[in-house]
């Protein structure tokens, strides 16, 4: 036994020029298909990028109490969602600490598809005591593609042979591509106009082929995880195990975060019955709000340039997004006020951005802080300013 390949591998495999693969949930997926990920990134913002996101964990939840189960688990109000809606939501343990985040697609009155970054089957089962509900792991059975970018709508309309202009942000619809039944949701992990296509794994390849054939004229570009990583930082989207730890994996309390601390306060419903973590989250809200904030940072160009100039070098930019824990200090550079967990250069916005956890008193937009940077083996501090997320939020995303 070795690592598994996704249902699209017969197509994605030959595309890989540099054999740059990475692991995702026990599968291999492309880091980038071309030798550099630049073009793949620009396709996201300029044309359309096609990602293979099949390794996502997917669960089908059906039955009379399906929405009750989900409402018991997640922080958003699933009972209020309408058929055809997709919800992005975190879920928590009883102490209000975040376990994972994902989406819930309302496929029918008693039929939901949940995606998650970590395996969630057992947790759903643990929560389903006494409920009339069936939980099915459809991860292997369901292939998923993500088509993201300004041209994604035109391509998909042609492929699905139907008008998608009525499909609103975070809504889904059934459709057919080359006669193959698919579900199309207007969702994604890039913060751009984009769609995800869900299809039975056995019929995955023709769907890929159709999108590539039709999309070529529109600049469709298969893209890998490196490009996606830059885009998701621009969009200010969290990544588990990078930007936060699942409370079920955390070794110590300090590694856990609540959704309120992760900037997901908007997903924590106030109008629903008991769910895991409700009491703790309400208490956190009542008690003056979270003590941490998850926010953006923009590293000042001048400051960075100066640090490099001191050693006689031009600034070196992180063209690949980094994932590390980097200390953030207050303006004076003495007191640590937080840490950044992801960062990188935005080729579109032409700025050095980072995602950071800051103590609430240092997290107001515009606050000046210092971020640690290593310049020629020496630790320095660059000036940075707190920037509200997302960094990039085009109108077309929702339009």
């Amino acid at each position, binding site marked *: 036994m070795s690592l598994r390949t996704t249902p699209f591998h017969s197509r994605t495999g030959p595309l890989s020029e540099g054999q740059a693969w990475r692991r995702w949930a026990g599968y291999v997926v492309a880091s980038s298909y071309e030798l550099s990920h630049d073009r793949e990134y620009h396709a996201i913002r300029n044309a359309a990028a096609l990602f293979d996101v099949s390794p996502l964990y997917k669960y089908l939840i059906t039955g009379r109490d399906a929405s009750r189960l989900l409402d018991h688990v997640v922080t958003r109000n699933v009972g209020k969602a309408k058929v055809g809606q997709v919800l992005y939501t975190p879920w928590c343990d009883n102490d209000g600490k975040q376990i994972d985040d994902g989406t819930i697609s309302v496929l029918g009155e008693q039929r939901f598809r949940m995606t998650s970054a970590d395996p969630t089957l057992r*947790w759903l089962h*643990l*929560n389903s*005591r*006494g409920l009339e509900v069936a939980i099915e792991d459809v991860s292997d059975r369901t292939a998923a593609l993500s088509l993201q970018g300004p041209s994604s709508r035109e391509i998909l309309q042609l492929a699905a042979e139907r008008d998608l202009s009525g499909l609103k942000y975070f809504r889904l619809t059934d459709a057919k591509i080359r006669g193959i039944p698919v579900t199309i949701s207007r969702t994604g992990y890039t913060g751009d106009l984009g769609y995800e296509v869900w299809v039975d794994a056995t019929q995955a390849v023709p769907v890929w082929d159709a999108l590539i054939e039709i999309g070529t004229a529109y600049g469709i570009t298969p893209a890998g995880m490196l490009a996606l990583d830059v885009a998701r930082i621009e969009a200010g989207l969290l990544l588990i195990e990078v930007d936060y730890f699942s409370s079920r994996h955390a070794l110590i309390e300090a590694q856990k975060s609540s959704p309120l601390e992760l900037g997901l306060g908007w997903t924590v419903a106030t109008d629903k019955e*008991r769910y895991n973590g409700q*009491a703790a989250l309400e208490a956190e809200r009542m008690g003056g709000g979270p003590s941490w904030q998850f926010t953006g940072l923009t590293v000042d160009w001048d400051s960075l340039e100066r640090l490099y100039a001191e050693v006689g070098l031009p600034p070196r930019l992180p063209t690949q997004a980094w994932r590390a824990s980097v200390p953030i200090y207050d303006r004076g550079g003495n007191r640590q006020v937080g840490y950044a967990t992801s960062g990188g250069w935005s080729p579109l916005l032409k700025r050095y951005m980072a995602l950071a956890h800051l103590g609430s008193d240092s997290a107001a937009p515009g606050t000046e802080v210092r971020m640690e940077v290593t310049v020629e083996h020496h630790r320095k501090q660059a000036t940075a300013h707190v920037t509200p997320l997302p960094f990039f939020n085009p109108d077309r995303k929702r339009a």
Partner: protein
Amino acid sequence: MSYDAIVIGAGANGLVTAHYLARAGKRVLVVERRHGADPSADIGWVPPRVVRDLGLRDLRLEQPDPWITIPLGGGGGGTLELSRDMARSVDAIRRVSPADAEQWPEFCRRMRSIAGVLERLYLAPPPDIETRNARELARMAGLGLYVRRLGKQTVIDLARILPMSIAELLDDWFASDALKGALGALGIWHLKQGPRSGGTAFNFLHHHVGCPAGVFRPLRSNVTQTLARMTGVEIRRGERAAVVAKHGRATGVVLEKSGDTILAPLVVSSADPRATLHPIAIELDPEFARAVDNIKARGVVARGTLTLDQAPSYSSLCIAPSLEYLERAYDDAKYGRDSAAPYVEVQRTDSRLEVHVQYVPYTDGTANVQRHQTLQQKVAQQLGVQASQVKLQSPDEEELQRGATEGHLYHGELTLDQILFMRPVPGWSRYRTPIEGLYLCGAGTHPGGGIPGAAGRNAARAIL
């Protein structure tokens, strides 16, 4: 009609809690699923504080003397009878093993000393080892000091003996199979474990609580009937009640038959924790619900009655000829079978003969007629009577009739991982539940089964 408190279950613990609450001025309703009062005797020590506090004047405590009659195998037959009087027991044991007779008084003294520690532990909520509360810490320190003052030997005995198997403990002291079998049987009471399993020495001592030195069978009493006859609380029989909870608060109970809801700000359940909490799982932290599911309550005892034409010569008869006999009886249970040769004990209370048969493992919650007949025949044969004279109820039947999960009389086995602050669920041993206004007071809570009223009193005190 409105109540301050509703108690589910009219067993000894439920009624004790109800009466304590009533004495504190609360209007209390007790809901019991069974129609009639249970005629069987209550087994175990009724804490004297309960008797005093509630003025149980009609309470009858019984302890037959001799407290056990052990048929001796071999050609000669005969019996070994153990009595409350130490000297008489020593004389009787001497006939089977002079060496064991020598050991008897010291053994009894040592066991009594540990049981004394347990008694003290049982009359209060379990020590809260996580606490930062100064009073609780002081209480724990007091307990520690009390134990240490009993002497070095008791401290070592507590640490050494409690985790031991009853077989190891008895092998350390005695040689006679008959004696070890009869004593060892107490160590496996209501456990799906054999005499060689660790922790059975604890179970043995648990059932020694409240007994005088040298008596290793619990007292028997009519405490439930006494409590049921007392005034002060309203009892509604023949109704199954389930807890109603919303937004993490108990609001009352719903009656299964009528569907009527009775409101009360306080609900106390003496039913087993799983049966109580399962219907409201949606209101619970899934990890807590998982812990509740993990409570081991594997019924292994068939209970019943024996009808004889005339009173037998014994007041208490134990068929457990050796530790190996018990161990082999357990081997069957391990693989889900009724013991081919079970441990059988008959206890006489007035004219009523009650039978305890072990191991009859819980299977799937259905009554199996053929299994039932085989079992009754087997037991009748062992007792030398007709099958029609034996009436037994398997754990499966017990569950069907009483609702105790897996037919476990104690609502959870008394193993070392399910006592004190681990009972009923680790971290929730103070009779409270995560549902505000819902308390537990049954055998599933500290100190567990076999001490009728102790959990009920502790729970009432925790509530008040």
